[in-house]
């Protein structure tokens, strides 16, 4: 693992721990409105300053991290699961199954991702689960396609032939032989995707969809305070920086894994 990779993992673990132990680290209530400390710039009492309702920004970033990270990771996991299963079936069984699944994939991928996610968010009552559902609904498709591509190249390989000739059931072939081959690919994709999902989640909360106030997420913090960017820029700078840093680390991590496994995936995964 390169130095960069190690650095990123450290940072990510650091951020996750900070978020996890938020109540221990900061005594402030993330939603604690304090009408007497409005819009304070960073000082000793409030490391990152306060927002326009007197809430401590540092605390909100810690708690917000919980939400942003858990949404992105959960969505990545679910997308992966669905995409994996469908991709495996599509690539392995071919024929009608393949046509059907790929048609669905094409359909989903024909839509601009963010717009589709926005549309789905509105269908359901707002909250964390809706955001996860929306991201997964859009994200599973590219997983499927990539996995399918991988399976197609492996399908006719020698070891699969021999497994079949020995009489292995389809299921066994799928899970015992093909799946393990895909793991490096999956790891890399997931790493890259989590970063991208954090961006999507923050975009959705920036647009006011998904998680509702007063719960803090990094995206909604930027959106809520963007009118103050000139008079009180710290309100916007810190959450944005957190998003960028986290996504950066995930992406570099994904890169590192990719180089390690010698894979070359099209960037536009």
């Amino acid at each position, binding site marked *: 693992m390169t130095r960069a990779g190690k650095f990123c993992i450290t940072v990510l673990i650091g951020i996750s721990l900070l978020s996890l132990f938020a109540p221990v680290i900061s005594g402030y209530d993330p939603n604690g409105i304090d009408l007497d400390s409005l819009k304070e710039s960073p000082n000793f009492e409030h490391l990152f300053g306060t927002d326009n309702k007197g809430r401590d920004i540092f605390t909100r970033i810690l708690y917000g991290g919980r939400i942003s990270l858990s949404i992105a990771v959960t969505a990545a996991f679910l997308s992966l699961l669905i995409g994996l299963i469908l991709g495996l079936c599509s690539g392995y069984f071919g024929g009608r199954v393949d046509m059907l699944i790929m048609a669905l994939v094409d359909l989903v991928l024909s839509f601009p991702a963010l717009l589709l996610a926005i549309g789905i968010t509105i269908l359901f009552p707002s909250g964390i689960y809706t955001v996860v559902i929306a991201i997964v609904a859009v994200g599973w498709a590219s997983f499927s396609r990539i996995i399918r591509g991988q399976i197609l190249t492996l399908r006719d390989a020698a070891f699969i032939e021999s497994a079949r000739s020995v009489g292995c059931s389809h299921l066994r072939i799928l899970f015992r032989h093909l799946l393990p081959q895909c793991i490096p690919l999956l790891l890399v994709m997931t790493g890259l995707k989590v970063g991208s999902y954090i961006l999507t989640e923050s975009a959705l909360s920036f647009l006011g969809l998904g998680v509702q106030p007063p719960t803090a997420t990094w995206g909604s913090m930027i959106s*809520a305070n963007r*009118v103050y960017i000139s008079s009180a820029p710290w309100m916007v700078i810190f959450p944005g920086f957190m998003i960028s840093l986290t996504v950066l680390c995930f992406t570099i991590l994904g890169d590192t894994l990719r180089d390690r496994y010698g894979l070359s995936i099209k960037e536009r995964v």
Partner: protein
Amino acid sequence: MRIGDNLDIKPDLAENWMISSDGCLYTFTLRRGVTFSNKRTVKAADFKYSFERILNPGTKSPNTWVFEKILGADDFMKGSAADVKGIKVLDDHTLRIQLKQPFSPFLCLMTMTAAYVVPREVVERWGADFSSHPVGSGPFILKEWLPNRTVRFEKREDYFAAPAKVSGIIYRIIPEDLTAVTEFEIGNIDVLTIPASEYSRYRNDAKRSLFISSLQGLNTYYLGFNCSRPPFNNPNLRKAIFLGIDREKILNTIYEKRGRLAAGPVPDILRKWDEPDHHAFDVQKAKAFIQQEGFDGITLNFYTTADQEIVDIVEVIQSYIRELGIQVKIKQLEWSAYKEAINQGEPDMFYLGWWADYPDPENFLFPLFHSSNHGPAGNRTRYTNAVVDSLIERAEIVLDEKKRWQLYKMAEDTIVSDMPWVFLWHKTDFTVRQPWITNYKIYQIYSMDKGTEISLW
């Protein structure tokens, strides 16, 4: 008609009018020589056409209520009559309107934009696209309309009253506060409605603050309770929540004093009678109520629109209510979805404002608190009180002002003691103008602004 500077009713296209002694018959004498911007003279028949056009279901106008009090309006809307009986054209310059029963603020209705006159031939030519090619009798013509971006007007020399002093007016719709402010600073904008986030900046700017105009608006902002079902069908809970919110502090801190604390639903300017009793902020009392009635630990839903300024206030209110031991879940909706959810009676609480259609206290009582208006018509809290209903109904047909004010006072006092709302404040409008703008005024109702006063030097 139009609204004068003192919020009184003044003649506009109607030069003169007579009201019968029973209050049901209004006879208007129209000014002569008034023309549409297509040079045709305005006649009384045009008014009949314009009013009926609003009532006509095919027009899909949301303002049918303005004319519903006219005799024969219902039949016309249902389709069982070919025209509205109560609107009679006596000759080219005389219009007579007969109401079903007296309605003291009727002349106010005639100041509304729904009552503006339009030429039949132009409407029929353009159909549903008429609003893109409007022709009217006002001091400007529409030059260009880019929806959500700009509206451009050019002055008409042949306006029947004194024509505008400027050659044209452009309204720019700029959703981003920062842009609006920057455009103003550069000098591209002459008059700016000060966005909330920039208010303190302009207030504290030595030069600019000289050019700030402000006016107490004819509006009322409130936290509405859904009175039709538990838990807010219980007036004590409503009162408890009222006591638990420090409205004054919110007004002074987050709202930066851009309004006046509301004692009741009617704005001070319109309230010609004594204020209802005040209740001070009292958390202990509030908590006591809530414990007593056994409401602590419940969860309520609180709907708000997605406007950040409003969400801020809602979040603050939420934290006050949390102090009382009640959990509040906020739900943000886009404006039309929001209105609809409220109209359907979905939320337990919501934040809303009501702006006057015309300057009469009736407009702040009847639509908001009469039981016939549950839902979209205005009474979104579904408040029902037979005493209030009858007071309002009686006041409508009374022609003597003093008697009306008495009835309204009793109604308002009852409403305040029932507390279907937390009466928050009456918002003040602020604009800032460039030094080269003279004769600028803010108006309380948009229909008052004909754009003919303002000028540049």
